[in-house]
Structures are given as structure tokens and as C-alpha cells.
């Protein structure tokens, strides 16, 4: 078993993607020279050059729309919006273009775009830098919304997202970046359509995603010490939501009570 | 014979009313002609007809009618009034078009309706008249073909000032 941080897992995922597909490139604020606001793209500029790691001016609407256009015309952009807080500036492009072009054009175009955003609060970053907007985005038809909550998902969800012909949003909770986790070296890929049971139990179902997953697992441990058996379901994918898994854990719970 | 219907002019237009006919019964119309001014909840809009022929049976003015209601009929090109009978306006109980035209208030929008018998007013005259709150159509025109010119508007202003001056003097 490999141990690495969630941040390192994200970084390796991006690196793999750039190595595997010449059409793939990263575009966003401070992804290049700065090394990434959260150091996810550290040193990738040196390795891949400015055509593959593209520093943008502060123009979320502009560069997100550009990512959409580039995806329409044959590239595979990974747009990084520094945090979901700034993504509101690009909301028109995400909703009215990325999510809607396939429908509006009557199926003439797919939008094979990935947008990664940091999300969440808990670091005293104050009101405008602490939002968690993945729930909003999960309500937009035409998008897929992912919330990797484990190092394994951080490592492998990106490849699946790039392989998906639709616009995929990946939300990385800022507190998770430092989290260490184990990575099965044999595991090559993950799906991006199902929830995952992280812990089985019979007294209560804890259903969460992203940062919430590790908190639920910690809570489950604490509950176990009190003689309570908690099940932890990691949603992983917020859109499309895995209703079957949610119903299954609740049904199993009802059956056992 | 074809019906000229109340047009849909917008996604949320349900009704409208004809506030001015720009043609008389028996007039020749062709596709693309502007024949009426329709008042909607957004204001007055010129309406084109997309039929060729002779227009007749014009609906009375100021009736709120749903989109798709018949506003007039268009007879084929070779139709003459003699064939079909007397030129008909709306039933006698309703005011004739000529009378109603005189009673129509000036629309608040800056749409100057065209049509037969329109008084020609020069752009400068119209602008000056608007500033002064005068209706240029009511003025006598000294320009070509009776057109109202800037000079005519200025003359009217002088005349009114002169009149009010006299009234003031009389009051004292």
C-alpha cells in the first residue's frame, strides 16, 4: 500500500492525464508559475511547459468559457477555478453553455470538459472564501458533479472524468488536501456513477461526501466505543446521485431494527 | 377570401386592440404592407398584412380581441366593391372609422403612423413641436405639398404667445 496526501493524489492524477493525452491541458489562475494555490500543480509547468499548464489572468468567465470552446473544438481542458467561491463569476458559462450546449444543439456537440474547484470552509477564510457550492451545482442538468472524499478517489476520479464526454465538476475540499491516505497500487480506475460503502453497520446510516466522509468515519469509531454500529456511505458522485445506494442503506437499517 | 387575424406579436401576448386602421375598406393591400396599429400591454405596434387583395370588413377600433381573432377580410385581387355589394364598414351601431380616427388620443410612444392623408412634417419641425408640446399635424403647412416646416411651427408659437399676451392684457 502506498501512502500519500490527497493533494499529491490530485497532482499525480493531473500528471498522468497530461502524459496520457496530448490534447489535455490545465488552465487556471496560478496553476503554472505559482505552482497552484493549493500546490496541486507544483512543478508541472517545468515538466510540461506553458502550452499544457496555462496561467490565466483573473477572468473566470473568460477562461471557463474558453475551456468550453476548446472542448467543443477537440481539446481536453482541465479548467481549474481556484475555489468554488470564484466560480460564480463563471456560472453563466457553466450553466448556460457547458451544461446546455448538447441539448440546445440537438446533440451535435458534447462538451468534454473537466472543471476542478477547491471548496469548503473551516480555515477562518471568512465569508466570501468559505462556501460549499457543490450542492447548488448538483442541481444543474447536463453536468456531472464529483466530490472525492478519499485519497483513492482523488487519485482516480480525474481520469474517469476526462474520459466522460460530458462536463464534469470535481470539488476538492480544502481541508482534505493535507489528509493522508492509503492507495491500493493495483487499483487502476474508479467509476464516477456510484456511491461507496466505507463502513458497514446496523444501528445508524451516516451518508456524506467529501470532507464529511472522514468526519463520519471518525464518528463511527467513536460510536463503536459506545456500542453503536454506524454505517458510512460515501456518496462520491453528487450528480447523478446514487439513489439506489441511499435507499439500500436505509432499507438495510430498517430491516435490522 | 382570406381572414386577416390578430397577430401574435410576442411570446406572452394574449390580446390586443386595433387602435388605428391605416387602410380604408376597399383598399388594395399587398403582402408586407403595414395596415393597422395594434395596442398591446407593451404599447402600440405596427402590424403588417401578409395577404394580397382587397381589404374589407375592418373590425371596429378599441376592442380587446384575442390573438387569432379575425380583424378584417381580404378578397382576391379581382374583387371589386360592385361585385360584393356596397363598401361595408362595421355595423351602423358602432362609430365609423373616420370619426374614431379623429377621436384617437396621440399614443404615448413615439411611433408616428404613416398612411393615406398623413400630414407631412419635416424632422426639424417635428422635433421643435415636440419640445413645445405642440401637435404638428394640426398646423397648416407652407412647405411642398402642404408639408409643415420649422417656420410653420415657429409661426404657431408666435401666434399662441401673441394670443396669450392679449388674454393677459385683457385680464388686467
Amino acid at each position, binding site marked *: 500500500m502506498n501512502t500519500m496526501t490527497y493533494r499529491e493524489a490530485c497532482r499525480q492524477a493531473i500528471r498522468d492525464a497530461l502524459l496520457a493525452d496530448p490534447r489535455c491541458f490545465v488552465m487556471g489562475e496560478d496553476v503554472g508559475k505559482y505552482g497552484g494555490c493549493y500546490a496541486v500543480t507544483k512543478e508541472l509547468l517545468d515538466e510540461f511547459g506553458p502550452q499544457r499548464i496555462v496561467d490565466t489572468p483573473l477572468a473566470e468567465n473568460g477562461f471557463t*468559457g474558453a475551456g468550453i470552446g476548446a472542448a467543443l473544438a*477537440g481539446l481536453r481542458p482541465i479548467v481549474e477555478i481556484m475555489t468554488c467561491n470564484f466560480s460564480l463569476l463563471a456560472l453563466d458559462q457553466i450553466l*448556460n453553455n457547458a451544461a446546455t*450546449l448538447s441539448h440546445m*444543439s440537438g*446533440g451535435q456537440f458534447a462538451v468534454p470538459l473537466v472543471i476542478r474547484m477547491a471548496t469548503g470552509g473551516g480555515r477562518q477564510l471568512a465569508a466570501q472564501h468559505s462556501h460549499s457550492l457543490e450542492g447548488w451545482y448538483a442541481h444543474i442538468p447536463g453536468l456531472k458533479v464529483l466530490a472525492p472524499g478519499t485519497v483513492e478517489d482523488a487519485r482516480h476520479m480525474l481520469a474517469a472524468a476526462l474520459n466522460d464526454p460530458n462536463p464534469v465538476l470535481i470539488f476538492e475540499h480544502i481541508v482534505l488536501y493535507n489528509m493522508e491516505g492509503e492507495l491500493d497500487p493495483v487499483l487502476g480506475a474508479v467509476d464516477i456513477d456510484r456511491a461507496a460503502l466505507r463502513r458497514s453497520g446496523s444501528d445508524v446510516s451516516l451518508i456524506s461526501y467529501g470532507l464529511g466522509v472522514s468526519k463520519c468515519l471518525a464518528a463511527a469509531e467513536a460510536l463503536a466505543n459506545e456500542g453503536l454500529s454506524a454505517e458510512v456511505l460515501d456518496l462520491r458522485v453528487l450528480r447523478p446521485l446514487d439513489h439506489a445506494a441511499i435507499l439500500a442503506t436505509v432499507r438495510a437499517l430498517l430491516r435490522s431494527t | 377570401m382570406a381572414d386577416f387575424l390578430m397577430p401574435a406579436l410576442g411570446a406572452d401576448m394574449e390580446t390586443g386592440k386595433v387602435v388605428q386602421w391605416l387602410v380604408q375598406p376597399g383598399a388594395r393591400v399587398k403582402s*408586407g404592407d403595414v395596415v393597422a396599429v395594434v395596442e398591446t400591454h407593451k404599447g402600440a405596434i405596427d402590424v403588417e398584412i401578409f395577404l394580397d387583395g382587397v381589404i374589407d370588413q375592418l373590425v371596429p377600433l378599441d376592442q380587446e380581441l384575442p390573438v387569432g381573432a379575425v380583424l378584417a377580410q381580404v378578397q382576391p385581387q379581382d374583387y371589386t366593391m360592385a361585385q360584393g355589394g356596397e363598401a361595408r364598414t362595421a355595423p351602423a351601431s358602432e362609430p365609423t372609422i373616420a370619426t374614431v380616427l379623429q377621436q384617437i388620443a396621440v399614443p404615448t410612444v413615439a411611433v408616428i403612423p404613416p398612411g393615406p392623408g398623413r400630414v407631412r412634417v419635416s424632422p426639424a419641425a417635428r422635433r421643435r413641436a415636440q419640445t413645445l408640446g405642440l401637435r404638428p399635424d394640426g398646423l397648416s403647412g407652407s412647405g411642398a405639398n402642404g408639408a409643415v416646416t420649422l417656420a410653420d411651427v415657429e409661426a404657431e408659437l408666435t401666434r399662441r404667445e401673441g394670443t396669450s399676451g392679449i388674454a393677459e392684457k385683457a385680464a388686467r
Partner: protein
Amino acid sequence: MSGKLTLDRAHGQRLFRQMLRIRRFELRCVALYQAQRIRGFLHLYDGEEPVAVGVMRALQASDAVVATYREHGQALARGVPMNALMAEMLGKVQGCCHGRGGSMHVFDRERRFFGGNAIVGGGLPLAVGIAMADKRLRPGAITACFFGEGAVAEGAFHESLNLAAIWRLPVLFVCENNRYAMGVPLQDAESQTEVYRKAEAYRMASAQVDAMDPVAMAVAAHQAVAQVRTGAAPFLLECRTYRFRAHSMFDTQAYRTREEVEDWKRRDPIERLRLWMHDNHLIDADAQAAIMAEVDAEIDAAVAFAEAGTPEPVEALEDFVLMDRVVQEQAT
């Protein structure tokens, strides 16, 4: 490269025909809309024909086009088949977008026609991205991006021109300055009403053209396209034009006088070209009549095709919300 564009009989008649085709198509749309055959919003191009025709004339098949919701002219001039366009307007599945797009969202993959964008300014970032991809994958191809002067006030204009400039992207930004952003006149909306001057802020080349002169417009478009293509750098072309009809069907035009419109109609570019060609013996009454008849026949056929079309079945409701493959790259 000379700025001259030879306008011989063939070229002249084609220019005339293409503009007339758009004008007659738009007129037919008015009738169809009034009769509720076309629903929703309808934005017409009367008076602006030289812009679409002039630019498309200068483009190649491999170039890309991004347009606005007032795009019937661009679509027709680009070669989107009239049948497919009319069926789309009537919301039929035989339309170019399965009836999903309607008047404001015309897309045609084969002609690299990327909409039909109804958010003012929303297409400019798309154009930047398409040009980014083309610069790498289709060197020599350019992206022509149409927008009105109203879009100039949107932040997306600033962001897109800046991006195109710093990244040296082959985008031709075509500003159709028809003086009114819906009902707001240019002088009330813009601190700099000479739109082409705004390119200076991005150190981008630009030009302004009187788009009521179809020949001048064709020349300007030709030069601008060539400059973008050879210089592989963006360009802003401000086309000073005028729309004879309202912003959309449901517009009382309270923001402008009838006289102003009539004044501009006297500068009708189609009539202007017709007269010029007539005076220079490049067209006669017979040729004119033949062109008109041909154009109207094509429109009649398109309307018949569209009326005979069918709506999308309910079973298709969830199609194209998500795609199962990148269709524009993989046929199957």
C-alpha cells in the same frame, strides 16, 4: 495585398442575392410568427445583411463561427440549409437542432457554426476557446465571433479580447453596432462610442466600416479575415449598421422615432447595391426578377418542408442532456 475587391457581374449578383435571401427569409418569419407558427422570441436582421454576407464570403469551410440570437442571416450566409433552419424555427425534429434550439440557438456542426447564443456576450469566451483549440489542431483556421455593441458593455467582452490578445488567438471579433442594445442607445451605454477604438486597450488591431455599404463591408471583412489568418492575431471589426425592425417582435420601439427608421431605410444596403449594379449594367430587371423568384421559391419550399415536419417525440425528452460520446469527434 490590395484592398480592392473585384465586383463583376457574377460576384455582384451573388452579393445581392445572398442579402435578398436573408431579407425575404426574415419577412417570411414575421408572417409565420404572427400566425403563431414560430413561437418564443424572434430577432430579425433587416438592414444588417451586409455584415453576415460580407464576413461569411471571406471565411473558409475550416473556419469557425460564433453568433448571437440574431443569427438567421449568419446561418444562411454560412450555408446552413434553409430547410433545416426553417424547420428549426418551427420547432420540428427535422430542424438543425432537432427543434431544441429554435430561432436563438442555431447550431450546425458541419459548417462549424457554434450558435446561436442568447446570453449577450456569452459567445465571446467560447470563440476564444475554439480559437485556442484551432491554433493547435487546425492551424490557419480562424474563428469569426459576432456580437452587438450591447455586448461591449459586458465583462465577457473585456475578458475575451484580453485573452485573445495575450494568447495571440486567431479570432475576428465582429461587432455589429446597430446603435441600440434592445432599447438603450449607444451613447447612453458606452463611454467610448467608437467601438473599434476599444481594441487599443488590448493592443489589438481594429477597423470600423460603414456596413450600410455592402461593397465596403465585403472589402473590410476580406481584409480583416486575411489579417487574422496571416498574422495569427485577433482583430476587432466594428460594423456600423442599423436594424430596420424592432429588437424583437414584441417591441414598440419607443426608444426611437419613426423618422429615424425611415431615414435609415433610405440607406437600405440591398437597394443601394441594386441601384449601383443597375447603373453599372451588372444587373437588369429580368435578372432581378429571376433572383427574387428563385429566392421566394426556396423559402416557399423551406416553409413547406418545415410545416410538414414533426415535433420531437416525448420519448426523446432526456436525449442530449448528457452525451454518450464526443459526437463531434466520433461518428459512432
